[in-house]
């Protein structure tokens, strides 16, 4: 079947099998930031934004998001200029092996769009579905808080 995906503003008209998962389709299209890990909707590394909301691409049929807007980490940075959440993650040392980071960046981005001034608990609850086996989460919580401050600052300029 034929579907259209709008990924980071790029339109892709593609032929897929109705049983294809969004995760594999996005990776085949070259969006390699979308990571495959647990394959059972448990770890959050395959998170992408569909119409601005974080979902798990490993347990979503590509066919079911036909015509919808998808965002991956590739769409957040502009060339060499990283997104404030990415910057903050670097500054806080919140990425060690890095495998979970695309999912965490996108989940954080969705949170900050909805809630530009999240409390520590808001951040923890938002990241509930993103497993990181390196950091213990504290540095990532700090990074998202820091990014929120930076992003609010930008708005006031």
């Amino acid at each position: 079947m034929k579907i259209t995906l709008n990924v980071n503003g790029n339109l892709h008209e593609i032929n897929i099998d109705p049983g294809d998962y969004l995760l594999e389709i996005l990776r085949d299209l070259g969006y390699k930031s979308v990571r495959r890990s647990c394959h059972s909707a448990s770890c959050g590394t395959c998170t992408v934004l569909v119409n601005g909301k974080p979902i798990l691409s490993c347990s979503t049929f590509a066919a079911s998001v036909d015509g919808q807007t998808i965002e991956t980490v590739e769409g957040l940075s502009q060339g060499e200029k990283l997104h404030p959440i990415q910057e903050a993650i670097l500054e806080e040392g919140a990425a060690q092996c890095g495998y979970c980071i695309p999912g965490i960046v996108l989940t954080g981005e969705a949170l900050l769009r909805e809630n530009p001034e999240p409390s520590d608990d808001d951040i923890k609850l938002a990241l509930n579905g993103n497993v990181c086996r390196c950091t213990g989460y504290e540095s990532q919580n700090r990074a998202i808080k820091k990014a929120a401050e930076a992003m609010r600052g930008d708005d006031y300029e």
Partner: protein
Amino acid sequence: MPVDERELKSMLGGEDCKIMAGGTDLLVRIRSGRLSPSRIVSLARMKGMDGILDLGEEVSIGSRVTMSELLKCELIAASCPILPMVVREIGSPQIRNRATLAGNLVNASPAGDSIMALYLSNATVVISGVNGERREKVSSFIKGPGRTTLSRDEYVGAILLEKTPGYFPQFYKVGQRSAMAIAVASVGSLISGQEIRMAFGSVAPTVAVPEKACEYFEKAGEKFDDGEFARLAMLAISPIDDVRASAWYRSTVVKNLVQRTLNVWRKKG
């Protein structure tokens, strides 16, 4: 992928055809090889079945409404506060953005947290099919673990929850971690004056309702005794040993959560 209910009805039936809403449970089971349906009917392109409606005494929740939408709904927060209390504990934000109440219901897991809220809200399941519409109380709709009265050519169109704004809601879930965890045991309740509604998750083949204990609560009056209430409540459960916990541990958790429910009610009430 049907676009309306007429088309949906024409697609149902046949051997192992599965209806999919958010797919957060179904697709995980397919990926792991535990299930391989020959056909999946996805509700992704459906028009309708996505509303939360105020019906006066009841609230109707369409089968395509996601858990995240339920959490944001002011009508639900005001009229069925037990529901968001339970839904907040389900999965993760990513799961709640896709998962639906109807999906959790038809899976009929003994650990299906949102099903407990449906029991407490005396919910009615609106079932449609080629032969028209029928309605059934959630307690009779669910037959056992993974089993409901839904036949192959039927689907759940909506779920009606009784409004319970005058009740004090409580929900306690014990799991191995706070997010993404299937409950080891859970206890939910609604208390108002002399009436109590209570339900237990993960300690019987379906959500269990301790009817004898609820009756005792309503009739005992001055003689009410916590120990007797707990003893009667425990008659409703038949926990098992499994990978998540032992039967003994589950029983102990339920007993403690029942006591906590009474304590918190007295403090607040």
